[in-house]
């Protein structure tokens, strides 16, 4: 998905039938085999995971998964419930691109000679906000963080100048409208979860029901 799509605002209506990009965030216990347990929820339904990042969260022992897929609201909602149902999953959030801030990290390895010789390369790198991670006699590694389109276009721009190697990370994302997960965790650790823990998606329908 390009940055352009991200910028276009697409409200995630509950009855939205078409597919769009969704960002799924999963908080889970750090346990062997859980990645597989989550991954098969997608593969069982023949859904391709476009990007998957898993790393320790701010809370010790709890990992945060960031999964990107393109599907309809209905499918994503059901997937999220199936994931949350897993014993070692604490919480699942899913959001459309406009509801999150996201970044990917890209590394570019280029010949040091090329940069030293060609002023344009240096200008190019500055233009993309790249920072040098390693500078050696033979090669230099630059890092850029940004959206897919930004990291992609630098690849294109560097192609004439001997781009030796390129790699891009999975996406990491932060939900614009989110509360502290620490608070939620306290609830989880309590024996009797309070009402706040329950996101009341069923209750939201209240208004619409009594039209018999």
């Amino acid at each position, binding site marked *: 998905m390009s940055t352009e799509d991200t910028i276009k605002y697409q409200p995630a209506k509950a009855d939205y039938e078409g597919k769009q990009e969704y960002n799924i965030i999963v908080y889970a*216990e750090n346990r062997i*085999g859980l990645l597989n347990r989550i991954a098969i929820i997608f593969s069982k339904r023949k859904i391709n995971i476009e990007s998957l990042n898993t790393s320790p969260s701010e809370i010790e022992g709890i990992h945060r998964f960031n999964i990107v897929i393109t599907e309809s609201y209905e499918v994503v909602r059901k997937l999220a419930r199936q994931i949350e149902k897993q*014993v070692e999953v604490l919480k699942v959030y899913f959001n459309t691109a406009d509801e999150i801030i996201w970044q990917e990290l890209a590394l570019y390895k280029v010949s040091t000679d090329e940069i030293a010789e060609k002023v344009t390369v240096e200008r190019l790198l500055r233009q993309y906000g790249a920072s040098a991670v390693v500078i050696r006699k033979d090669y230099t590694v630059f890092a850029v963080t940004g959206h897919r389109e930004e990291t992609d276009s630098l690849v294109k721009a560097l192609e004439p100048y001997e781009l030796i190697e390129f790699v891009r990370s999975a996406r990491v994302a932060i939900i614009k409208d989110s509360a502290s997960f620490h608070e939620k965790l306290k609830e989880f*650790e309590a024996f009797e979860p309070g009402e706040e823990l329950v996101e009341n998606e069923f*209750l939201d329908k209240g208004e619409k029901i009594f039209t018999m």
Partner: protein
Amino acid sequence: METAQDTIQTAEAKAETSTKTFKGTGSQALLNGLISEGVHTIFGYPGGAIMPIYDALYDYADKLTHILVRHEQGGIHAAQGFARTSGQVGVVFATSGPGATNLVTGLADAQIDSTPLVCITGQVFAHLLGTDAFQETDVINITTPVTKWNYQITDAKEIPEVLAKAFYIAKSGRPGPVLIDITKNAQLQLDEFPEYIKCNHIRSYRPKPKVRIEYVEQAAKLINEAKKPFVLFGQGVILGKAEAEFKTFIEKAGIPSAWTIMGEGAIPTTHPLNVGMLGMHGNYGPNVLTNECDVLIAIGMRFDDRVTGRLDKYAKQAKVIHLDIDPAEIDKNVKADVGVWGDCKETLPLLTNLVNESKHEDWLALFRDYNQQEIDQVITPELYPQGDEMTMGEVLRNINEICGGDAIIVTDVGQHQMVACRYAKFNNTRSNVTSGGLGTMGFGLPAAIGAKYGAPDKTVIAIIGDGGFQMTPQELGTIMQFGAEVKILILNNRFLGMVRQWQQLFHDKRYSFVNITSPDFVALAKAYYIEADKVDERANLRTALETMINHKGSYLLEVMVGRENNVFPMVPQGCSVSEIRLK
């Protein structure tokens, strides 16, 4: 890493039953844990990688009964039968490799039918993991999609805590199968174990939510405004042990109630508000009137496609209330207008308080009208056939007359299963044991063995087709050895009947590989020292059934039924429930 040294030490290690801690092997810790969880019966099969556990079991014969099955699949189906009739967690032992892979069908069956199981599999030594060692399989990854939870133990220290978690997860919330894979070194490992503490909380796992009264209020409002409310109930009522709460609810609100085959028996067959079976081979009225009710109240059921038929023509006119403990089921197949997420043991009494007393006489009369049509066109010819050929239905009618609805009926999968579910009379809950979601042929015989251990005072009748019986006949050996008093009733139509019925109706009668021959079942049973008889004419049926049921001990009766009888009514696949056919 464990060495042979430990193996030698095992023999010396005796379970010390000190008050707080005990010294012993991982295997002993496991068995002590099982006893602490109230386990008394285990279904299993030994093998190389689980030998230390079996070695320890040798000393626990006074506390733990081990039923040696003839195949691990039989073991897990037996544990399922046990869990279904007893309401307790079924326990299975199997060895690594083929032992563990043979559990997969049963795990899938238990997963889809929410049956609480704890399966213990042996695994090769931890240092051999990933080396393609003898009888090594990646059991955890193979079983991940078909277990509620699974875990591999490589260090005995983990055994008590993991076992406690396993039992808690298996039986709480929406129950399901759990598998623990224990490497041989952990089974042998000598250690000091703390006192066994049962688990009652896992921070990442919420078996049931705190019930929000707002949902219940919304549901009650809909029910109170309804003119034609209709209740669909499933196994959730039984799993939640909420049969009494359920009965009180429907009686106060006066709502006709129909069941999924997994929910059958939650209220007695003869209850005036019990209007029958849902789904593909369910009753006429419940299917047709699903598309005429104004409020549909689904309780502990999951709108399986065999229940709903064509989904876009299913109950579109109705407001849907869905009570379920599993939030992933609400809105999964049928959109709920009100989702009441919670344990029905808690939500039903709240709902009962808020609903008005009502009768809905005219609405109930509609169900009776449809029922009369079904009786005339389908039920009477099936239960009281005029032709020479015996029908499955008349066999069931005779069983009802002999047992009066108090027997436990275990079925396999196919035509006989649908006939049994349709016509068997049940007075009590936990009396119908069948493979619902997975439709596992071969389930019946082993499940009946477990069902008997789960309800030793009940008459257990396993109704099985000639096809399904030939999938797991080896369990006759288990019946022989342990004397499980199972009444085996083979309804033999010399066809794989359900597939044949579909081929007749939807594939131009092209009977492709459904013509199945059978061995001499009577001789087969007798080879296992099980009393047996065969009936091929109606005149002998009643006496033969009475002989079977009154016989002390296990018994096999083969009844030859009509070859090409079909099960009706039927909602053809892809059709709406209102398009149900009576013939």
